């Protein structure tokens, strides 16, 4: 009776594992650019689930031999069971080796599963790290592009500045030239006024002297 219950539990776990794998499949395909990675991760998860179910079966069956049983009835059944018990006892030396091997193989597979799970987690972490690095790289590329634009703009501003300074210098040169011309004119006019004044004074002096 106990064995029947265990068999039914195995079947239930296997069905649940397959159902959960089926339920995850459409969700993964709806995730755009990262879909391929997610599908791969889900396939690994399904494989892990199936492996866990198989290991559960192997653990249950591994450490012992099946019970002696008969489908017959009456004397024939008793004879059959007696023969089987004798054979079981007679072959015990070899069947226990098989049982031990089964147990060792089950444990090894369980350890492998644990190692694979650890690798899977590590892989997921690395993938996340890679994704983060990708984002950083993308940001760096954007910054480099912006820096390039900024450098070009700075260059343009520098050129404009130089051009303005050149124009200002030209403007100053022309203004100085204008001032210089005006100063020359003023000097000429001043000299003319001075000479005029001197000649007037001379005339007055002459008049005064003549009167005297």
């Amino acid at each position, binding site marked *: 009776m106990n064995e029947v219950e265990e068999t039914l539990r195995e079947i239930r776990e296997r069905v649940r594992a397959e159902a959960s794998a089926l339920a995850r499949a459409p969700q993964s395909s709806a995730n755009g650019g990262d879909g391929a990675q997610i599908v791969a991760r889900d396939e690994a998860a399904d494989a892990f689930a199936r492996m866990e179910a198989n290991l559960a079966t192997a653990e249950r069956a591994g450490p012992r031999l099946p019970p002696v049983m008969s489908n017959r009835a009456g004397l024939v059944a008793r004879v059959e069971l007696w023969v089987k018990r004798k054979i079981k006892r007679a072959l015990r030396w070899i069947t226990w080796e098989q049982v031990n091997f089964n147990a060792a193989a089950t444990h090894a597979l369980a350890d492998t599963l644990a190692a694979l799970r650890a690798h899977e987690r590590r892989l997921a972490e690395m993938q996340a790290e890679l994704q983060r690095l990708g984002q950083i790289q993308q940001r760096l590329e954007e910054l480099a592009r912006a820096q390039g634009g900024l450098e070009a703009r700075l260059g343009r501003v520098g050129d404009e500045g130089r051009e303005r300074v050149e124009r200002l210098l030209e*403007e100053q040169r022309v203004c100085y030239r204008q001032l210089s011309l005006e100063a020359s004119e003023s000097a000429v006019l001043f000299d003319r006024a001075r000479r005029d004044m001197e000649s007037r004074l001379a005339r007055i002096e002459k008049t005064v002297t003549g009167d005297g």
Partner: protein
Amino acid sequence: MKEDLYARAGIGDVAEFYRTKFVSDEVLDARYFRALDRFDMHMARTMWVYDNVRAGSAVLDVGCGAGLLAPLKRKGVTLAGVDLSAECALAARRNGYDTTARAELTRLPFDDASFDYVVSLDVLGHIDFAEKDQVLSEIRRVLRPGGVTMHGIECIDRRAQKGYDEMTAEELARFVRVDGHVGLEEEEEHAARFRRFFAHVEWRPRYALCLSSEEFVKQSDEYGLPFERDFVEYLRGLSRAERRAFDMAMGYVFNKISDLDLRLPKSGLYVLLKASDAPLGPFYNEHRDRRALLAADPSLSAALSEGGTFCLDRHALAEFDAGWHEPNDLPPVARWMSRRGRVRFDAPGLDALTLDLTTHLPGLAPARPLGLEMLLNGVTVARLSLFRYGWLTLRLDVPPQLAAASGGRFELEIRADRSWRPRPAGEGRDDRELSVAVCNVVAHARAALDGARG
């Protein structure tokens, strides 16, 4: 009340308000004055003063702004100016005033009896009623015995316009913000006020007939004067050259009214007023002598050109034709040219001409340069393509055969293959046709060059 009215109009800094209203890059310097401008309506008030001051006298311009009386320097007067705004005082100084100062008009910074004439144009309408008497008292103080004070005063006609007390707060603010008028009075009220300070007062309503095109539009738009709507719209649509022609015609009529001593009816806009303690002479043209305005003094020309090198920009030593616009302070002070401009001048023994030129033509590039051609007495002496902004100095050597055939009389012509209009429409419209700006046009005579080489 003055502060109240300005404050109520939202004008916090009165000096700054006037600086922005009345200071521009316009060159009023007498050395750049064009004889033809004596007919320009904008110069009508200046010409009235010009024809009424004695040559060689001392003149004070009260509220001088940027220096509207600068042409008086052609008459050899000593010209002083005061203004509420330091920038205005500086601008007037740049325009040739002998001395300028920033000062309140109620406390003039001059000694008693310092001037033969004290003049103001468009000032008394900006002075609060409470201060007007103090200003007139100061004018009387600085005026020499027998001196004459002359004023162009904005007026109000209360039959047609609301007084300050009748305006709503909004109307008052709008009215004051237009020009800063906080002290407008009727023509007769101005005369009565002057009579309290001077024994002889005479006044004439002006601008009853003649206004500049700009003033017609402004009086209609800003002050609501009832000019014919279609006429104002017509004026609004005129180009700069057409407005200039209109203003010249108006100015010509204004001058003739003065010459004929015609008395116009009250305009309610503006009055010219003369006052003195001594009996007044003729209201118009008391000291009319425009010779210095019409042409350069021959002895001055001779003095400036005797060194062999002289600049044609100033002193009417050269005649710039209508292809040139009025000088602007870019800086330097330069004349903008339309597509073609001519300069006529006398320069015996001319060997070379030098000049500085620039352009602000939009879209100038090596692929699309501005083509220029220089002709001297009709002969092409240079062709060039201008493809960058900034100033360029040009030297034009005069071919000996051309100099020999000229008889000492030259005409420099500059032709440009393109032009542009700075602001062809909208507010602050400037639809002048411009190509290059030119200054420092210097004539170099052979003798001077030989002397310099020797």
